[in-house]
């Protein structure tokens, strides 16, 4: 890998690049899916290539290729320079990078048991046991469970002298049970929705999920939802489970603190942000119970690594400190635009994509309450579990989320199951109404594996630590 990267950097410099970096990436993915008692697919995916990023004429250029012959790599580097030169003829403002030390090192995700050393037979066996545990209810029309394992070897090198080798390992799994009746369809998922829960960890994470042990309960909950009462409507107290809190953090804190959005780089696609630089350090984003961090050192989140994709070391930054907006996710270029240095959040979806600012592990720091205490001190409200739908505006203010199920709370007690709940609000008002966050014992790291951003589209795996939390006077209603 080092020979290839040096060849790429030399070719870029010879073609006129004032700066160049490259990432040689080898990615192996296993995906196994069992559906309705049948192994629906076992997909084994290998991917290798190089992405070369340059500055020439004061503009960026990027080119990637999966042909790793010397001639191909050199020509790709020259093409990146041609692209930069073409852009430089339109641009007036040259790219400026905040300084960053040129680092050398190695990092490997700590794992108990390498998931690629577990046989496919054992993995299929676990999924078949999970499926079997959901098969006892005739109302369950679709049973689906899956596992995914990723091993990504990354070599990063830059014309400034950085040379970094990383091996990132991810393990994920989950199950969905879908129940149907003549006029209703309801799905319950575990440990999280949209296919699976994933972390930077080894096979031990899958064993800890205990998919077979939870499958029967989840299937029964899906069936119960078919005849559950519709969620009540009105303004009321909402308690989010940790998985839904994680997605709320993702959409309403993670994305709006991306500094490239703030500077307009994503204005035509993902959007901008209400968290403009003039608000930094003074804007009340939430209540005093709300502290949020970006922490790429916090295992086992999917945003845990040694260095980001422009060679900046993993670190912890405070984004919201006891309710006050205090920081952004940044890159060397965007940090320079506001007089700061990068806090290491540039990430790319493989070798073929340009690194852009992405979430690492964006965490709602634990509080001092507990789910039990929150319910016990709620007169009337709903406890909402597991995301079903999510939507938020392009500045990340106006949101509406739906969850798979809810529990009505009356006089401090969890009473009846309710279906089709949705809740909505405006980001600062919502977080401003947060009056409790559960403590470390109920705080868990979750993974989002479908975070979309960028053109061409990039799908990123990001982490979110969160605990159950409570919000007052929230608009709640049934969907459909």
């Amino acid at each position, binding site marked *: 890998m080092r020979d290839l990267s040096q060849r790429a950097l030399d070719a870029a410099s010879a073609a006129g690049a004032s700066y160049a970096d490259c990432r040689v990436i080898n990615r192996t993915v296993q995906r196994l899916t069992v559906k309705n008692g*049948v*192994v*629906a*697919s*076992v*997909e*084994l*995916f*290998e991917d*290798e*290539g190089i992405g070369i990023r340059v500055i020439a004429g004061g503009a*960026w*250029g*990027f*080119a*990637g*290729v*999966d*042909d*790793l012959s010397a001639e*191909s790599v050199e020509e790709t580097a020259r093409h*990146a320079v*041609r*692209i930069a*030169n*073409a852009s430089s*003829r*339109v*641009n*007036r403002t040259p790219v400026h990078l905040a300084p960053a030390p040129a680092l050398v090192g190695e990092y490997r995700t700590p794992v108990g048991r390498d998931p690629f050393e577990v046989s*496919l037979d054992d*993995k299929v066996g676990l999924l078949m046991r999970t499926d079997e545990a959901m098969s006892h209810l005739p109302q369950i*029309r*679709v049973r*689906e469970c899956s596992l995914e394992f990723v091993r990504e070897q990354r070599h990063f090198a830059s014309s400034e002298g950085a040379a970094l080798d990383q091996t990132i390992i991810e393990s994920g799994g989950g199950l969905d049970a*879908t129940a*149907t009746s003549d006029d209703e*369809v309801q799905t319950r998922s575990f440990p999280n929705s949209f296919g699976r829960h994933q972390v930077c960890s080894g096979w031990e994470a899958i064993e800890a999920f205990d998919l077979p042990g939870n499958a029967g309960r989840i299937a029964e909950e899906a069936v119960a939802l078919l005849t559950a009462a519709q969620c009540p409507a009105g303004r009321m107290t909402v308690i989010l489970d940790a998985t839904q809190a994680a997605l709320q953090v993702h959409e309403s804190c993670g994305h709006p603190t991306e500094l490239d959005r703030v500077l*307009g*780089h994503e*204005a*035509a*696609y993902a959007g901008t942000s209400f968290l403009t630089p003039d608000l930094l350090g003074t804007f009340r984003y939430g209540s005093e119970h709300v502290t949020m961090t970006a922490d790429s050192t916090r295992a086992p989140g999917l945003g845990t690594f040694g260095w980001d994709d422009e060679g900046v070391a993993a670190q912890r930054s405070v984004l919201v400190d006891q309710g006050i907006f205090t920081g952004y996710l940044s890159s060397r270029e965007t940090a320079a635009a506001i007089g700061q240095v990068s806090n290491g959040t540039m990430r790319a979806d493989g070798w*073929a*994509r*340009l690194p852009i600012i992405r979430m690492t592990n964006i965490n709602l720091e634990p509080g001092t309450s507990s789910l039990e205490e929150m319910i016990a001190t709620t007169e009337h409200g709903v406890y909402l579990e597991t995301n*079903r*739908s999510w*939507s*938020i*505006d*392009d500045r990340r203010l*106006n949101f*509406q989320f739906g969850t798979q199920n809810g529990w009505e709370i009356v006089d401090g007690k969890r009473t009846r199951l309710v279906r089709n709940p*949705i809740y*909505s609000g405006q980001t600062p008002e919502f977080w401003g109404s947060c009056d409790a966050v559960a403590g470390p014992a109920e705080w868990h790291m979750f993974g989002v594996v479908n975070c979309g951003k960028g*053109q*061409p589209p990039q799908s990123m795996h990001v982490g979110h630590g969160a605990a159950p939390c409570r919000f007052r006077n929230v608009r709640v209603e049934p*969907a*459909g």
Partner: protein
Amino acid sequence: MSADELLALGDGAIAALAHGEAEVIIADTRSELTRFAGNEIHQSVAERSRHIRVRLIDGGRTGVGEVRGHDDRAIALAFAAAEDSRRVTSTSDVSPLPAPTPGDRDDPVAFAEATAAATPQERAELVSIITEAAAAHRVNAYGALSATTTTTAIITSAGLRRSATSTQASLVSVARGDDGGGYASRHSADIDALDVADLAAEVVDTCERNQGATAVDPGDYEVVLSPYAVTDLLEHLAWVGFSALAVQEHRSFMRIGEQLMSGSITIRDDARTPDVFPFPFDDEGVSTQPVTLIDRGVCRAVVYDTPTALQDGVTSTGHSMPQPNTWGPLPRHVAMDAGDTPWHEMISSVSRGLYITRFWYVRDVHPLRTVITGMTREGTFLIENGSITRPVKDLRFTQSIIEALAGVVQVSRERRLELGEGESGVLSPWLHIGRFSFTS
């Protein structure tokens, strides 16, 4: 490599097959994209890759191996991975490889040499038409121009050999002023057919008209939806209901023979029409047939792949995604029939309502009832007494698509080719809808 070279590569692999059956899909992609923000190019990228997918069927088991790489060993790696996969899969419900059908043709295909040959310099020059127009009006332009060429070959041991080279050029732009923005996009197989100056005029005009928006109360409004917004409705219908698997699993709103929408609504999937990025075959190599999904408001048919067709005792309509999969077939060339009303006359027939340029972040809330939610974005205007009177702040809607389409008043005679969020082509008209629900 050319399509013939990819076919030869696949032929060699199939010829070396010792036992069982195999399908090889090879796709060579060259994709370049120039992105701009604040009237400057801030990202410009290129990618060249080969994706090989092998499906092996032997002893009643199916395995899949995928490799992205140009290495000479790539195809052998894919076969080895597929064999590793095959050994651990179930022995039931194997979907057979489709046989070639007499009369199969590898055309029409959306292809233009100009797109395949477009250079970074040419893209930069096209982008500058927009940025200069924006600068002349003291607004900022943002967006992306992409040019993609893909050569796909599918070769199977059942004798099927299909190949096609397609191109796609896409230009999307937002213009932003001090207090509001506009949106416009154009898509074509041919980058030279993109009317960039027309797009620039539209996006700047919408931006200038959308400054200083004021709020209106949420509630039910009569609306005129532009094709950008209609595309979201059609794409979500395709995802949640037009698949045979969704019907078989009781997840679809489609009740065949029942009228669920206005008689003015006809929705088809037609991969052969030149209007919607034509492509001759699906990911099983089966020729894609035109399917009328909604016929004058009546649920008429859904699309099939081989597994769902076997389940229902019919033949595949050629809408398969790569097999095997758990998500089922998908229409990827959806078009709504045009009506006979010029779109601007729709506005003149609205006494009080909203004109919606586009939706954003549209998500399914209750798929069976086709309830979706999302926001309006970059161009929401109040219509009063037949005229657009002022811009209004963006609103959240939560609305059943089929209920909205049941209340269609007029369909425009003009249509536009759009790309949905899933990047499939959608041919959409303007729609005048009697009631649409905005919640906040």
